[in-house]
């Protein structure tokens, strides 16, 4: 039987209360959101926090999806299921809907949160790449107020983010653009599994030209975004040749490892092919005005 190591437990009653508890208990304290990454790690004793602050009671305060000031604002406790079922998300950030369809399974999606997913920063976690491709920003709150960070500032690498010991993620902000489209393509070994590899693309068009494309890969040891691929797309008219060149750059610009999910060669092949497919779909959606 796998049980976590003993810990003290307290429920947060508000964001303010959670921050006070974090401050009082220092680095031994951890937030518990949906628990679908932290509890499995605690059961395996890969994590053993001494003090657990349950933020499940903040699911109301931090569970929202709303359009405001040209952005889609998503509260940190918004669950995968709510993202999957949101019309606003499907309309403005279809890449999220694409990803949510294949993140874990419906039962896990009832509990897992966007805040937990981004803060866990698992290398095979899907929403980090999705948010990076969308050029989302995240709001991190601490005693001194809010910091608004870009994904490259926030996401430091596997299991590491810019969130300090006495801080928490509050909100994710996705900029809205008039002629834009996005898509996510993932290959997994079986339904509900983590990615073997995945790619996200968010394309903005103006006067028949790509003004900006966000490209980000999952599970293949890539940077937060694929900078070389993004540069190759900016200012170009959308075409198969442009997409293929960018996909090639994205595949070159990552460092997958061989594991039980596949070989380096296979994953690099997927990185190329999935980037290509994501670009095609994202561009088609932008052209349909179907962001």
């Amino acid at each position, binding site marked *: 039987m796998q049980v976590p190591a003993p810990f003290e437990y307290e429920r947060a009653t508000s964001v303010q209360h959670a921050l006070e508890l974090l401050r009082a208990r220092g680095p031994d304290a951890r937030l518990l959101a949906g628990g679908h990454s932290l*509890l499995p790690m605690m059961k395996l004793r890969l994590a053993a926090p001494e003090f657990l602050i349950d933020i499940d009671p903040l699911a109301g305060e931090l569970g929202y999806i709303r359009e405001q000031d040209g952005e889609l604002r998503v509260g940190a406790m918004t669950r995968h299921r709510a993202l999957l079922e949101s019309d606003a998300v499907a309309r403005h950030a279809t890449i999220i809907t694409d990803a949510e369809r294949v993140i874990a399974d419906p039962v896990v999606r009832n509990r897992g949160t966007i805040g937990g997913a981004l803060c866990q920063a698992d290398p095979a976690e899907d929403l980090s790449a999705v948010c990076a491709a969308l050029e989302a920003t995240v709001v991190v709150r601490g005693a001194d107020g809010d910091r608004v960070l870009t994904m490259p500032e926030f996401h430091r690498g596997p299991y590491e983010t810019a969130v300090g010991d006495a801080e928490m993620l509050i909100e994710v902000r996705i900029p809205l653009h008039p002629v834009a489209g996005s898509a996510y393509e993932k290959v997994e070994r079986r339904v509900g599994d983590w990615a073997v590899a995945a790619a996200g693309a968010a394309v903005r068009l103006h006067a028949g030209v790509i003004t900006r494309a966000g490209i980000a890969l999952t599970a293949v040891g890539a940077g937060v975004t694929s900078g070389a691929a993004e540069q190759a797309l900016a200012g170009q008219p959308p075409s198969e040749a442009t997409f293929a060149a960018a996909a090639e750059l994205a595949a070159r610009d990552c460092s997958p490892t061989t594991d039980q999910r596949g070989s380096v060669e296979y994953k690099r092949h997927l990185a190329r092919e999935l980037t290509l497919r994501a670009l095609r779909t994202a561009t088609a959606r932008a052209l349909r005005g179907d962001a």
Partner: protein
Amino acid sequence: MQVTVTINGEERSADVEPRTLLVHFIRDDLDLTGTHWGCDTSNCGACVVLFDGEPLKSCTMLAATAAGHEITTVEGLAAGGELDPVQQGFIECHGQQIGFCTPGMLLTARALLDANPDPSEHEIREAISGQICRCTGYSNIVKAVRWAAENAPATTTTTTTTTGA
């Protein structure tokens, strides 16, 4: 710590360590062993219960988090000695063999039908995709859920309430 939940319509309480997982709280402290406990890694879905009306892998929640919430286990499906249509469907269509996945499958099916009384085969397969069955190849489970959809009484009989996301 004292944890109190409403389980199958009844308020139950026990004194447990904060690290107690909901599945063990239900099985060992509340003596409701209908909820099964399988992989322990949040993958198999044998431990699924309804938490405020939504399927939950109870090996992946602390009992402490569940305090104050409503839980339905397989023991709560039959009302007044009448089997829930999903239970009857599993009997009619041979939806189980060894029965290890069955409690979780029944509860997920109940939640699906509460939200969508006439699900397609695809919707049923999607709903149960987080739960593993090694006997039926899923075909008979899908048939059983369809049977329940087609033979449902006018009103459902669960004690759960559904809440938003």
